[in-house]
């Protein structure tokens, strides 16, 4: 069985940058990933990635793809890694169909949107429930909608919807909205936005499509009729595939300044880690560091 020097898991900004660095160092490696671009694809306006005053997520991902294709990098696209195991000094990586062996790993699996985990959520996905306000907000012209989550992404959804929907309920589980002060003030001035704090969503109901939600505020169940529901309650790290590295209380993989995890030979980069600032440009930098770190590590092995 072939033993790689490095396997990179994930092909978002972190994984792809790691790939470019590893390719330039002529390492013997592959990238295993479900898709190219990760969560970057879902960003709409990107105005803080150096070199582009303005670019959309999908366009930036196409640039990433062109860049990585300059180097003959072997990308196993469409493969989901199920688990990473120790194999004596090396590591064994399993997907549904294949098994790979490698001396070092870079975990760059990123994050995924958090789900509400309430009754009706699975049933009505794409049938009124959406996790991408940028994509779907225009479908709700003159409709009544709910936005779950009072952080920045929830507030952003409310702003987008304020020009489209007839009525917007903003629902936050904490006792206050947690997004930027400036945006909160803006939203409080919009008449058609009704804000519920200290409020929990307990059920989404409907027929073929969403018709309403049940929420609890002050121990009282309230029913709100909505045609659409935008879930914007943050994200969680895709760190379940490995269980022998240390993680923090949020399940993020803990890395040091050289992107080393608690286990020798395992590196991690980008949003799956405890790195400060979950940003595209930060993830790129982290990916670069992880690749260099893996290269250095192999040199002295």
């Amino acid at each position, binding site marked *: 069985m072939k033993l790689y020097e490095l396997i990179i898991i994930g092909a978002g900004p972190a994984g792809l940058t790691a790939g470019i660095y590893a390719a330039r160092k002529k390492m013997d490696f592959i990238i295993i990933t479900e898709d190219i671009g990760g969560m970057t*694809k*879902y*960003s*709409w306006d990107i105005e803080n990635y150096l070199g582009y005053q303005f670019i*959309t*997520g*999908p366009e930036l991902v196409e640039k990433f793809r062109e860049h990585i294709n300059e180097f003959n990098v072997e990308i196993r696209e469409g493969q989901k890694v199920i688990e990473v195991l120790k194999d004596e000094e090396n590591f064994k990586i399993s997907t549904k169909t294949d098994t790979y062996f490698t001396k070092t790993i870079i975990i760059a699996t990123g994050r995924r949107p958090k789900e509400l985990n309430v009754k009706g959520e699975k049933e009505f996905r*794409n*049938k*009124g429930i*959406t996790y*991408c306000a*940028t*994509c*779907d*907000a*225009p*479908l709700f*012209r003159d409709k009544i909608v709910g936005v779950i989550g009072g952080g920045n992404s929830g507030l952003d959804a409310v702003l*987008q919807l304020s020009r*489209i929907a007839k009525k917007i309920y903003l629902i936050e589980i904490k006792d206050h909205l947690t997004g930027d002060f400036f945006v909160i003030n803006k939203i409080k001035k919009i008449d058609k936005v009704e804000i519920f704090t200290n409020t929990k969503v307990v059920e989404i109901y409907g027929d*073929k*499509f969403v018709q309403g939600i049940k929420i609890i505020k002050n121990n009282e169940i309230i029913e709100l009729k909505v045609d*659409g529901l935008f879930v914007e309650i943050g994200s969680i790290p895709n760190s379940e595939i490995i269980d022998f590295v240390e993680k923090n209380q949020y399940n993020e993989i803990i890395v040091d300044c050289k992107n080393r995890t608690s286990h020798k030979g395992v590196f991690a980069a980008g949003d799956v880690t405890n790195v400060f600032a979950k940003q595209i440009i930060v993830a790129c930098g982290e990916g670069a560091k992880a690749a260099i770190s893996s290269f250095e590590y192999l040199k002295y092995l």
Partner: protein
Amino acid sequence: MEKKVIVYSTKTCPYCKLAKEFLKNNNIEFIDYDVGEDREKLEEMIKKSGQMGVPTIDIDGEIIVGFDKERLKQVLGI
């Protein structure tokens, strides 16, 4: 014979843009409905696909939800 291709999209959806670019690059003619503006077409899309995700692409009655490059290639025979 050429297949009739209809794309139901919104202005802001990144995948709609990618899907339309993909069709253009492959010289596939298509009709594009902005379902953010056109209520009637939105209803039509929902009726056809039983859901509200965009892009929804109708190729001679075959419905593809999302930008699924492989399926598009397969259905279009390219």
